């Protein structure tokens, strides 16, 4: 670790940069900064800053949800995993879409009807504000920061690969600075449009890549499937033919898969940066429409991983893929359509990371400002007009700067994949159970919410620390993914916590009101007038 990180980046004999890639990066940066400038001029007031004035339309929010959700881990990571481990990589693709049924059927509409800016609004609707908001805010900050560090380290490694000559630290600082600018100046409106543009870029890049792959096989699915079920690989000097559609190339323990599946399917509906997107639309019906749009886009994207994931396995040199699996989608682009398309796919990957980290930054800063600062510290009153937005802007800056520092301290070689798993596990074990119980269970109490959040959060972190990720061979908990144990623990804690604490007449009295509002949308936060 050098004391002056930037100095380490100035390498005298760095390889020549690809001018096309650099140009496309700069084009995307320029476009998003223009949007930020435009948003900053339009944004005034809390509902504009935190929720884009609740005037985002259904299809726009659908694209933005997709852009918020599909991270570089999805695009580069899954392509790489399919290219090296075949079918097992594709299993991830499935879970990421099916998870949206939980969002659609149980969470999106009541959340939109009951809340204002954050997930904690739903809990605070009838429980005691300060304890539940403090815990929910802690959970939101931790989930967002885990996820963000994973993205930042990924971004650093990626930019280093894509733009030779730019070092890891420079890349992390660049990505971090951009996301801070989007969120601090442009708020939710700028974040939304960065996510929309990213989703469009990602979909067009993936579509083009898929078409190019199929062109190699004469647009014949028979030839394509024939090729991917007979891929020649060389292992230890012995040549063999492998069917890449055979399960089990990577995952050995089905129980671990069940555990991962639970975290995906239940965790997505508890990810704070996804949930706050539903406050940007005018009403619950539009929130529903936006989930449908998001599901169409996310589903099409993950189906296309078949083509560019398995395609990379069939068309690229296995040694090159194995050397750096995350680069298999960009390398495939280069092999099929040359440097210009490589540059485009690289810029898409870069846009992908930026849109996700911007979404995470705004969810963390909104929760700190709205839940913790205004409601926990100041008992729900703003001392000066505009104070909440100001605090959010400062928080966005601090959270961004902290993530840059942590990503640089951890360095490019740290394995960050587990941080994403941890974020989903916490969301599934802590956040979702208390959201559901506060909406559907009259007897639920403040103590139940605090217990549920605390135990869900604590057990997810603990089980990862004492599992194979934290302890390797000597793991006490046998699974990589804690969900199968931490989700029941979180649920149980919320349930027992409620039963052992005294009835809360105030909370129970408000249950009827909440039920009417959650299911009819009466009195929900309205969009700003034009």
């Amino acid at each position, binding site marked *: 670790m050098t004391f002056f990180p930037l100095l380490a980046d100035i390498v005298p004999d760095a390889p020549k940069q690809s001018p096309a890639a650099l140009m496309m990066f700069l084009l995307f940066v320029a476009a998003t900064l223009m949007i930020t400038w435009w948003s900053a001029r339009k944004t005034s007031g809390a509902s504009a800053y935190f929720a884009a004035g609740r005037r985002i339309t259904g299809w726009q929010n659908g694209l933005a949800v997709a852009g918020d959700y599909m991270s570089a881990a999805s695009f580069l990571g899954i392509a790489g995993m399919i290219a090296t481990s075949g*079918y097992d990589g*594709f*299993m991830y*693709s*499935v879970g990421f*879409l*099916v998870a*949206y*049924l*939980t969002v*659609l*059927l*149980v969470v999106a509409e009541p959340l939109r009807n009951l809340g*204002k800016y954050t997930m904690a609004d739903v809990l605070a*609707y*009838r429980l*005691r504000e300060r304890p539940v908001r403090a815990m929910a805010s802690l959970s939101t900050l931790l989930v967002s920061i885990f996820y963000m560090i994973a993205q930042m380290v990924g971004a650093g490694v990626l930019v280093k690969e894509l733009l030779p000559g730019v070092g890891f630290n420079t890349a992390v600082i660049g990505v971090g600075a951009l996301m801070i600018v989007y969120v601090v100046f442009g708020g939710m409106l700028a974040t939304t449009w960065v996510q929309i543009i990213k989703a469009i870029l990602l979909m067009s890049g993936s579509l083009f890549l898929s078409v190019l792959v199929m062109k190699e096989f004469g647009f014949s699915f*028979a030839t394509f*499937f*024939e090729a991917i*079920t007979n891929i020649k690989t060389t292992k230890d000097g012995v040549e063999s033919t492998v*069917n890449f*559609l*055979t*399960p*089990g190339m990577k995952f050995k323990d*089905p*129980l671990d*898969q069940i555990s991962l*599946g639970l975290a995906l399917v239940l965790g997505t509906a508890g990810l704070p940066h996804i949930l706050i997107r539903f406050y940007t639309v005018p009403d619950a*019906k539009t929130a529903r429409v936006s*989930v*449908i749009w998001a*599901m*169409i886009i996310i*589903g099409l994207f*993950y*189906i296309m991983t078949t083509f560019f994931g398995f395609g990379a396995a069939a068309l690229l040199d296995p040694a090159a893929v194995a050397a750096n699996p995350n680069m298999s989608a960009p390398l495939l682009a280069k092999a099929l359509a040359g440097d210009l398309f490589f540059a485009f796919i690289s810029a898409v990957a870069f846009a992908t990371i930026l849109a996700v980290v911007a979404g995470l930054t705004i969810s963390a800063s909104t929760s700190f400002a709205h839940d913790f600062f205004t409601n926990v510290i100041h008992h*729900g009153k703003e001392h000066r007009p505009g104070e909440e937005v100001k605090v959010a802007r400062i928080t966005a800056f601090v959270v961004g700067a902290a993530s840059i520092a942590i990503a640089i301290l951890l360095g490019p070689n740290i394995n960050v994949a587990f941080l994403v798993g941890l974020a989903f596990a916490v969301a599934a074990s802590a956040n979702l159970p208390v959201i559901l119980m506060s909406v559907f269970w009259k007897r639920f*109490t*403040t*103590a139940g919410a605090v217990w549920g959040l605390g135990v869900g959060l604590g057990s997810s972190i603990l089980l990862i620390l004492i599992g194979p990720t934290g302890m390797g061979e000597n793991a006490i908990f046998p699974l990589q993914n804690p969900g199968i144990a931490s989700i029941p623990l979180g649920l149980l804690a919320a349930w027992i916590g409620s039963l052992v604490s*005294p*009835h*809360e*007449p*105030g*909370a129970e009295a*408000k249950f*009827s*009101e909440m*039920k*009417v509002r959650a*299911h*009819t*949308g*009466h*009195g929900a*936060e*309205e969009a700003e007038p034009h």
Partner: protein
Amino acid sequence: MSEKDPAPKAAPGINAEVWEKITHRPEFEALLAAKRRFIVPACVFFLVYYFALIVIVGWFPDLAKKQIGLANFAYWFAFSQFFMAWIVAWVYTRAAARFDRLAADILGEHTTPDTDKK
């Protein structure tokens, strides 16, 4: 723990008893029953369908590897999950349009507009 409940953000003029009464109106009970009748089975269905994939892939390798046309059973079953999700979402959208109508009827009858902006 309950003495210090925060002042409810209740609407002026509508107290807890009025809300309670609304929840016992047959129209409102019909709305909740209709939602429950759809959402509970839909959730059970999609969870069973999704975890069946992991169970078959993990514990029934022979079935998973069975070749059907161009690909094996495991791939087709995974591929079908996308369409399952889209179909459930589409059916829900249709059902939800009915829930919206029921909710609109309840609101039209029992509340005055704009009583309670937070």
